[in-house]
């Protein structure tokens, strides 16, 4: 690959991720409205598409206020971390043959590492805000995200065993015969649940539960600093959807259509599914979430690894 082509891919991926994250906000509002028999934003531009632009102009021009009691450097740094880590994780995703920023042999591990680092953003924000709601939100986020990180990693191991590689490109190519969503149903379910919890999306949005914690770890944030958390969340949901596509639904593989389109289509459908989850399920209680994770999902993930490993061992 020439240098120009590499640069094109890098900036293309970053730009596409940001644009998709922005469009996700519009998509989510429209779909939630659709499922609640409303219209959602439909005034600004065609189908309300420019609403995102209007909101962006608004949030950028808002007063950027740092509370006097906050730990200033940490408070300012925290929102950036989530965006940086999530955007970095996009580097390993193979969107189509030839369209990926870097071909890492440890792609899955890199993704897991980056989403773990994202926890720092939340916990530092909660700590630096010096406010009880933010702190409780931050603490919840650590417990939840670290816990679900474990099952997330374990649920992917089945896929890794089947493909025999941590390289995401090889994982996709190993699905030419059969997508891993069929032999790894349990792994898929666990990965989806852990993914939602990892990106603290509804119904697992306990770190920012509005009805209990004001806004959780970003209670004290305003303007674009809050916007960064928001952006990080929507980047995250796209990232998780792209990872599910790559790991379980055969990435870019598919007949007739060009590979990139297949990838986008699958990712889109998974994002829609996540929004549907948000539209339909209530938030569990905090202790229920933790107990559920450690007592049910962790054993299930281990059983999944055991069975997959056993079958592979017997079959080979």
């Amino acid at each position: 690959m020439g240098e120009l082509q590499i640069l094109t891919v890098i900036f293309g991926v970053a730009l596409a991720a940001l644009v998709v994250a922005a469009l996700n906000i519009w998509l989510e509002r429209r779909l939630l409205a659709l499922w609640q028999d409303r219209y959602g934003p439909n005034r600004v531009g065609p189908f309300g598409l420019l609403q995102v632009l209007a909101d962006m102009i608004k949030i950028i021009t808002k007063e950027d206020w740092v509370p006097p009691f906050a730990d200033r450097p940490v408070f300012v740094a925290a929102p950036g971390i989530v965006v940086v880590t999530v955007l970095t994780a996009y580097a390993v995703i193979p969107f189509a043959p030839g369209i990926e920023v870097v071909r890492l042999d440890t792609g899955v591990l890199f993704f897991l590492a980056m989403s773990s680092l994202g926890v720092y953003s939340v916990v530092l924000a909660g700590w630096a805000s010096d406010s009880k709601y933010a702190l409780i939100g931050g603490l919840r986020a650590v417990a939840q995200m670290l816990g679900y990180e474990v099952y997330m990693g374990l649920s992917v191991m089945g896929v890794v065993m089947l493909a025999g590689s941590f390289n995401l490109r090889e994982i996709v190519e190993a699905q030419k015969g059969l997508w891993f969503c069929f032999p790894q149903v349990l792994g898929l379910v666990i990965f989806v649940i852990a993914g939602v919890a990892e990106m603290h999306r509804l119904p697992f949005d306990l770190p920012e539960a509005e009805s209990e914690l004001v806004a959780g770890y970003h209670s004290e944030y305003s303007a674009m600093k809050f916007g960064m958390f928001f952006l990080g969340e929507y980047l995250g949901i796209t990232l998780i959807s792209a990872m599910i596509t790559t790991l379980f639904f055969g990435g870019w593989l598919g007949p007739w259509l060009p590979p990139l389109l297949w990838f986008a289509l699958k990712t889109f459908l998974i994002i829609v599914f996540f929004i549907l989850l948000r539209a339909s399920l209530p938030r569990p209680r905090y202790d229920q979430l933790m107990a559920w994770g450690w007592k049910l999902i962790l054993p299930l993930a281990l059983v999944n690894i055991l069975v997959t490993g056993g079958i592979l061992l017997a079959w080979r």
Partner: protein
Amino acid sequence: MWSHVRTIALVFLHMFRKRETVLYPEVRPDIPPRWRGRIILSRDPDGGERCVACYLCAAACPVSCITLQAAEDGQGRRYPAFFRINFSRCIFCGFCEEACPTYAIQLTPDFEMGEYDRQNLVYEKEDLLISGPGKHPGYNFYRVAGLAVGGKGKGEAEGEAPPVDVKSLLP
């Protein structure tokens, strides 16, 4: 577990339901005629002002948004010299309409009164007065009241018997 799956399915099926939203500026909401909206002053069928400046509306108003000044013309008819409603205070409770003895002050189904300048919400008499009788066609206070007023003497009102000279009944 299955109840969650069922919930997700049911929410998904809402995709095919009709949306409840009324797209307001394009689709006008269907407002009942008794809606308590913009306040008007009506006229009787002859075109005269119904308001007799009795101050009952101003007294009934819980937020004191009605101001008026009574006056009397040469024929004995009372009318408001000015009549002012401050709609930035008005809570559209309709007490003024209930208090009015002559059906003069009425609330209408118009609610689109938004203004950029607060001062524009103070309506004067010429803004309030309409040309018709509003909700009560055919009602004319001075024609049914027993009051002697220009052109109509005692006992000439509708349904009223001529006044009896009680002194003539003396033996």
